């Protein structure tokens, strides 16, 4: 059994004490002396040319301190795309400037074109309402097919047909894939939509700019998953503030799910306003602003085809996808539908030939970027739906078609036809575990019980894989990334033996403060209670790349382990000196440095104290102090995988779908805190059920967001999800990081949507509605009923 607070223990989350007692300190909770309040003025039309903005009346209103418009930022830089993606014909990616505030044109409802700063929120709102913008409305470009077909109507005047890039992966394989299709005994074709989602973090975005005229230092408090990236973007691209003069602090952050990875214009605007006024300037988004201006997720329209032998052996797979990037390129908008999506299209299968084509399309909608899973849910949904459809067409059992095509446990490392090398896995093991845990053998009995109650029961499977722990800088650099994706840690041992660990990862709900302390406690053999995890403040932590892509433990955690190993190495030197032994004879175990083969030993605490009271150190060979830093850049992605089963009941009269059960058999590699891992899976599956059944982001033909509040945007509630059965006992440890961990944050959201939709289609098929082959998400009651009666 693990110790109470070491690796493998379900240690209760220490951060929950403050979160659950209202003591969390979020950006909106921070109030600086003399702060002024900012309100952004946002476009009410989806597409329009700004002729003029008259701020005179607003500027004269009570309490108004400053009004800035796009013109005030015309000379500063744009917020860049973080990844270069070339078209398959070699054409360069189209990268329109994304300004701090809209200038010249507004390009989506909610596009901010002015900011008002006033003494109070009410004064700022009053003045914002008094700004007179003369905007000539242009036809809105909402639908991607229309955007691509229309040469004259452009989101960005310089970008023809609104296409950012037309990407082929891997282009050299295209001919071979097409040839395989031409001669295949069976081809299954499916057209589907991966529905657009609004992230809906519990905490809306908020930012405070705080310029100190005395030191000329800037501070930005902001809701970020990634404070160093935000600092880098503001410094190097947007405002040109030197990094040493800009501190970015992301304090407690109430959820991100991707939407807070990115730098947003509001952050630059409050910094600039603070500089102009010599006062702190604070902005807190209202929920309606979140709906309109947070980066949305998904939004793919896909045609996927699977070529098979009659016995169900996969021969080739190809897809054509249009991916909506919205009005501007958000920081990860170009990588999400490409290298986080196309490279996953082999899934866990041995499909020998795969070709993926993705067109990224500009529209007059909010920017679209990574959202929990980021490209991999889109890939998994497409694959797992077409596999089910092929099984139906060929009358093959849904378990057997998967088992037949899964990569074998003896085939790792496995090189896929889409450019990844899976280091390790055992997909049969998780499938077998699923069959056992989910009692798949008992399904027919449960189905007849449902039938007795007038309900159609269905069973849906999903065998999924993801590439996460992003990522190796060398690999992502070769693929077009403009940043490195290492991470960093500093371990500072204090004189009394307590420890502060500064990490480049950012916790916004994940529980890093608990888990990271468990890992360090285990490695050093000291209680976790004497270890603090420090994150989120660029003036305190080493340069790291934040948290997303299930990377925190695999990448930043590995950096932390490396730094701890350096602490142990340094401790051995100190112990050798104190114990008058050779460094090579010192062993470190259970928190003690001892001379091998003797009972001579020093505790970790004694070593720490000595490091800061070095009265007799040989200073030429032994430095005082006990503090070490490490950077870690992984050799590969990590590849968590698993098998999910969803059972639903469908009320055919109303189309209502109820999730009756959901079972997960996951392989996350080694697990540090099972309770937190299970919580991550619960949350991820909950979001996946939300996408599958409820969440629908809908713009009308004028580009107005119809689902702009919780009156129309349906979030999953506790009553929409079942009690989950989750298991992570199938472990193949990651081969290339020191903890053998793979990451678990996105798994649930990646693996679950196809299991839900497969279950609904299965229920309808079993119920005799065999004409229903597919229903697009969200599988709402109305859509199910229409499919049944269609």
């Amino acid at each position: 059994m693990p110790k109470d607070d070491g690796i493998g223990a379900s240690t209760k989350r220490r951060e929950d004490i403050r979160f659950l007692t209202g003591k969390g300190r979020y950006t909106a909770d921070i109030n600086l002396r003399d702060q002024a309040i900012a309100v952004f003025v946002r476009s009410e039309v989806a597409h329009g040319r700004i002729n003029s903005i008259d701020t005179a009346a607003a500027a004269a209103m009570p309490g108004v301190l400053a009004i800035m418009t796009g013109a005030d930022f015309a000379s500063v830089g744009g917020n860049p795309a973080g990844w270069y993606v070339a078209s398959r014909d070699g054409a360069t990616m189209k990268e329109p400037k994304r300004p701090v505030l809209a200038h010249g044109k507004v390009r989506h409802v909610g596009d901010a074109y002015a900011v008002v700063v006033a003494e109070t929120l009410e004064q700022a709102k009053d003045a914002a309402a008094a700004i007179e913008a003369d905007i000539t409305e242009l036809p809105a470009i909402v639908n991607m097919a229309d955007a691509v077909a229309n040469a004259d109507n452009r989101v960005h005047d310089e970008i023809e047909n609104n296409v950012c890039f037309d990407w082929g992966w891997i282009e050299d394989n295209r001919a071979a894939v097409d040839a395989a299709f031409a001669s295949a005994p069976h081809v299954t074709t499916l057209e589907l939509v991966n529905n657009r989602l609004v992230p809906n973090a519990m905490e809306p975005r908020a930012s405070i700019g705080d310029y100190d005229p005395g030191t000329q230092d800037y501070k930005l408090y902001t809701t970020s998953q990634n404070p160093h990236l935000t600092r880098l973007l503001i410094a190097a691209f947007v405002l040109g503030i030197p990094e040493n003069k800009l501190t970015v602090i992301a304090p407690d952050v109430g959820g991100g799910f991707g939407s807070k990875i990115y730098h947003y214009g509001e952050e630059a605007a409050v910094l600039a306003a603070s500089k102009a006024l010599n006062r702190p300037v604070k902005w807190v988004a209202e929920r309606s602003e979140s709906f309109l201006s947070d980066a949305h997720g998904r939004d793919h329209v896909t045609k996927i085809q699977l070529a098979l032998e009659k016995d169900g052996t996969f021969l080739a797979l190809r897809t054509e996808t249009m991916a909506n990037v919205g009005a501007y390129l958000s920081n990860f908008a170009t990588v999400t539908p490409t290298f986080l999506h196309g490279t996953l299209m082999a899934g866990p299968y041995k499909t020998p030939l795969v070709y993926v084509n993705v067109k990224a399309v500009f529209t007059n909608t909010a920017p679209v970027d990574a959202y929990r899973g980021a490209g991999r849910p889109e890939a998994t949904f497409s694959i797992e739906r077409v596999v089910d459809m092929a099984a139906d067409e060929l009358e093959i059992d849904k378990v057997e078609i998967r088992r037949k095509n899964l990569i074998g446990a003896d085939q790792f490392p496995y090189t896929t036809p889409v450019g990844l090398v899976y280091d390790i896995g055992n997909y049969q093991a998780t499938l077998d575990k699923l069959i056992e845990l989910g009692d798949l053998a008992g399904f027919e009995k449960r189905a007849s019980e449902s039938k007795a109650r007038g309900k159609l029961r269905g069973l849906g499977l999903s065998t999924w894989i993801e590439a996460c722990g992003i990522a190796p800088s060398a690999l992502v650099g070769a693929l077009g990334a403009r940043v490195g994706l290492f991470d960093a840690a500093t371990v500072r041992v204090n004189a009394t033996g307590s420890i502060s660990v500064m990490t480049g990862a950012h916790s916004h709900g994940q529980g890093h403060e608990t888990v990271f302390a468990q890992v360090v406690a285990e490695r050093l053999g000291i209680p976790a209670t004497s270890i603090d995890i420090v994150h989120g403040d660029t003036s305190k932590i080493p340069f790291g790349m934040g948290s997303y892509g299930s990377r925190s433990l695999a990448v930043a955690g590995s950096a932390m382990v490396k730094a701890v190993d350096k602490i142990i190495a340094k401790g051995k030197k100190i112990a050798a000196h104190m114990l008058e032994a050779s460094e090579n004879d010192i062993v470190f175990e259970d928190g003690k440095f001892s001379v091998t083969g003797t009972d001579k030993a020093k505790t970790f605490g004694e070593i720490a104290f000595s490091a800061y009271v070095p009265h007799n150190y040989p200073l030429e060979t032994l430095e005082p102090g006990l503090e070490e830093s490490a950077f870690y850049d992984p050799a590969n992605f990590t590849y968590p995988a698993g098998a999910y089963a969803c059972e639903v009941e469908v009320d055919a009269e109303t189309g209502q779908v109820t999730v009756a059960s959901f079972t997960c058999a996951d392989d996350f590699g080694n697990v540090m805190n099972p309770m937190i891992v299970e919580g991550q899976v619960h949350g991820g599956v909950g979001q996946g059920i939300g996408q599958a059944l409820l969440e629908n982001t809908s713009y009308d033909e004028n580009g107005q967001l119809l689902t702009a509040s919780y009156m129309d945007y349906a979030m999953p509630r506790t009553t929409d999800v079942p009690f989950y059965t989750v298991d992570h006992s199938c472990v193949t440890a990651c081969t290339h990081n020191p903890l053998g961990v793979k990451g678990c944050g996105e798994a649930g959201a990646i693996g679950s949507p196809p299991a839900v939709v497969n279950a609904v289609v299965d229920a309808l098929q079993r119920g005799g509605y065999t004409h229903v082959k597919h229903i697009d998400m969200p599988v709402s009651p109305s859509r199910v009923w229409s499919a049944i009666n269609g």
Partner: protein
Amino acid sequence: MYNFEFVKPASIAEATAALESDGAQALSGGQTLLPTMKQRLAAPDVLVSLTGIAEMQGVCLGDVGLHIGAATPHAVVAREAAAHYPALAKLAGGIGDPAVRNRGTIGGSVANNDPAACYPSAVLASGATVVTNRRRIAADDYFQGLFTTALEEGEFITQVLFPIPQKAAYVKFNQPASRFALAAVFVAKFADGVRVAVTGASNGGVFRWAEAEAALSANFSADALAGLSVDADDMISDLHGTAAYRANLVKVLTGRAVSAA
């Protein structure tokens, strides 16, 4: 939210007087009005709270049946009507969430007449009487379309008087996001016939389904609805359901309400 004056009269007479001033607006539980004001979509000069008037509070048995003060929160109705009119109590207990049920009131809901609100169907199906500070209005005369009622300027509901049916049930199908009624049906069987009121579904707001009432008055069973259908032309079509879907729901839910009654 813009600034406003706030008054909290202690009697119906005081409230009537307060509502005569320009820009005055009655406020009950505020579950619709306050969010609208926060969004700056409404800006009354004076809010006249109706929740401090003792005679507008509470649930009791009276001449007509169950008499409910207009300022009674849903949670109180859910609790106190349960022994006398279980279908009505169940309806009240299914509105919104606990916070809404502890602030929102029956009078506020009936005065607002949101086409997807629950209460209008109970008022109409029960043949209730809406009592105002000026008069008594029969339910059949009260509801006049989306957000439209017989209430005149300065008039507010003080009580709703519900005849208690022999049997009744309310079956609601939730709109997935708001959990208002995507469609919901209240069926009430009285000695002299059956009344069926539908909310959430129609472009015209709450309505009585006359064909179903006739069929059920002759034979109070779900089978009696077999040959009937609802005209989809009058139904709401939106993101959450087509008109045809809502027409289907009305029939399905009516049958289920009859079975549950």
